[in-house]
């Protein structure tokens, strides 16, 4: 195992930030920590990195106890912080060289690594720019380059795509996949379920410092009753009809927001046919129909009763 966390408890006064948190990460895996803001994702990472004191539990990385002076372990770790953590008065090249220099003392090798890191996140043409002159997306890319330039075998990405435009976000996600293909084990935290679904081999869902579910995305979806979500674009529907829909076979719940009627079904055959027949019979006109598989948000919703982005 690359990481083994057992029974970790972290309190901030009366608030329990991590409540008997357990985690194992295998070599070469991309593990996603998914949860809303304040669920304990960053606290978990900071404890694993030995930045934060914790009240109870053990943390082993590469088979050894993790502590602030575990310099041999730290050499193999890369961290991409949630907030951009660069030096404002150094150029892009100097920033990467500065942070890479904490790991790699050989000047020639470091120069090569810095160039590779800039190429990896596609910021080589901004090498002489200071961070003040970079856009938000470029800053994020610089932040990543500073965390990965020394070619770590374990990388923590703490919400690296917050406030990033869609194009930069895709670049970042593709980069992370590439790093994994090159052999790095990755811990990825986010409150964007689409990213976690797209990227991670295994997912841990956190809420209020507690693990509420874990597994692959398919395993997680199989845990919940919802197997299908059908959405209709409807302009005129009354409460009586909605109540009748709720009584149909396999219907879990019905929501009507503005012009969208959303019906969640249990796993069964012909759910779509059943509901279309019913609407025709009640002479309800509809425009478009969408049928979706459950998302991680549905998993979170069904387990906690609230939306992931609440």
């Amino acid at each position, binding site marked *: 195992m690359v990481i083994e966390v057992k029974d970790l408890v972290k309190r*901030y006064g009366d608030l329990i930030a991590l409540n008997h948190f357990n985690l194992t990460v295998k070599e070469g895996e991309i593990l996603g920590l998914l949860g809303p803001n304040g669920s304990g994702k960053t606290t978990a990472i900071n404890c694993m990195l*030995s*930045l934060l004191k914790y009240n109870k539990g053990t943390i082993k990385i590469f088979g050894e106890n993790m502590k*602030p002076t575990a310099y041999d372990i*730290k050499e193999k770790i890369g*961290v991409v912080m949630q907030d951009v953590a660069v*030096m404002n008065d*150094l150029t892009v090249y100097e920033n990467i060289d500065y942070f890479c220099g904490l790991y790699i003392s050989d000047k020639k090798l*470091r120069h090569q690594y810095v160039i590779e890191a800039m190429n990896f996140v596609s910021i080589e043409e901004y090498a002489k720019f200071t961070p003040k002159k970079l856009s938000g997306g470029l800053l994020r890319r610089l932040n990543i380059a500073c965390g990965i330039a020394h070619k770590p075998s374990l990388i923590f990405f703490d919400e690296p795509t917050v406030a990033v435009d869609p194009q930069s976000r895709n670049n970042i996600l593709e980069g992370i996949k590439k790093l994994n293909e090159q052999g790095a084990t990755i811990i990825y935290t986010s409150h964007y379920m689409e990213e976690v679904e797209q990227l991670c081999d295994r997912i841990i869902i956190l809420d209020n410092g507690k693990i509420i579910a874990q597994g692959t995305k398919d395993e997680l979806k199989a845990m919940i009753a919802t197997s299908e979500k059908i959405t209709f674009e409807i302009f005129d529907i009354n409460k009586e009809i909605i109540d009748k829909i709720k009584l149909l076979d396999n219907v879990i719940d019905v929501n009507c927001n503005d012009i969208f009627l959303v019906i969640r079904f249990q796993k069964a055959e012909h759910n779509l046919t059943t509901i279309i027949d019913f609407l025709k019979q009640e002479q309800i006109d509809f425009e478009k129909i969408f049928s979706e598989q459950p998302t991680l948000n549905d998993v979170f919703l069904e387990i906690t009763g609230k939306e992931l982005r609440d």
Partner: protein
Amino acid sequence: MLTFFKYRFKSLISEKSLMFWSLLFPIILVSFFYLVFSNIGKENIFDTFNVAIVGNKENQLIKTMDEVKYDDIKTFELQYLTKEDSLNLLNQKKIAGIVEIKNNDEYELIINDNGSKQLILEEFLSNYQQKELLINDVLKNNPELLTTNWLETLTFSKDNVSNKSLSEKSNNEMIISFYTVIALSCFMSSFISANGISTIQANISKQGARLSVSPYHKRKIIIIDFIASLLIIISSVITLLIYMNFILKIEFGNHLGPILIICFVGSLVSTAFGYFLSLLFKKKEGLTIAMIIAMTMSWSFLAGMMGPSIKYIIESNLPFMKYLNPVALITDSFYTLYYYDSFAMCLPYLGALIVMFIVFITGAIMFLRGDQYDSI
């Protein structure tokens, strides 16, 4: 290690606001003082003041005023007039002031302006009064002290009229103000060390968190940062000294070694002071900045930057206070070195500064001790 030092140094020196406070602000301040003092000097050298005397011209004060000379030029041109005529001339600004001798030999100074001539006249009379009281006191209680040598030390021809050029030693007020600005420069530079330590502490900045998760030893990081900050602070102070000596032609005597030692010790205390405040207030950066400015300006004021009278008051009434004021200690070190040509006499002040350094750095180490934090 060298790479890390190079980037720490570059990062600290590139902060424009820090460099303003630690380098530019003291240069502006000292230039301002220079302009003010040099104007006073010019006026005094070339002008003799017209002063009206009303009342008994046989009074000892009037005789003394009549004898005061600088470079064989009389300082005061006395005109014996009635009060009415004197007031007329004063209103026409033809005289600097009126000294009225009362019946009981007490005197009163009348001025209606606040220029340098009036200031010198006031200073002269104030000094005369102090020395007159002193002589009367000695006459009454210790008449055996009234030797010629002792009386010579009380003459008014040398130090009491501040009209010498900037390169001469007698201009106490000016020299104290200049020395205080050097000490102020040391402590304004605390911004540099405060900023430095904040970017290496995980519980203060994100950059600090990145350093903390690296395999680079924390002790090494702190030592390198301390050296980088200290070097910048010393460089700022030396730049100020060079500017004062070579551009403004302010003399510091022939004591390069001791001057550098005083600057080094002052910079050490300043670096530790910046560390201490930054670690004390953690993320409250504004409070750290406000405290550095407030404390440095207060210390400088109490050390005599705006005029030595406050310094004399403190030394007369609360002499121990000087040992709690690092700016006063640096100022006094320079002053002692310059006036008494003795580095040995500076040692108590430097000793007190080193004690301060130990206090600040011990406080900072207490905050720096932990490698892990309760929250970040």
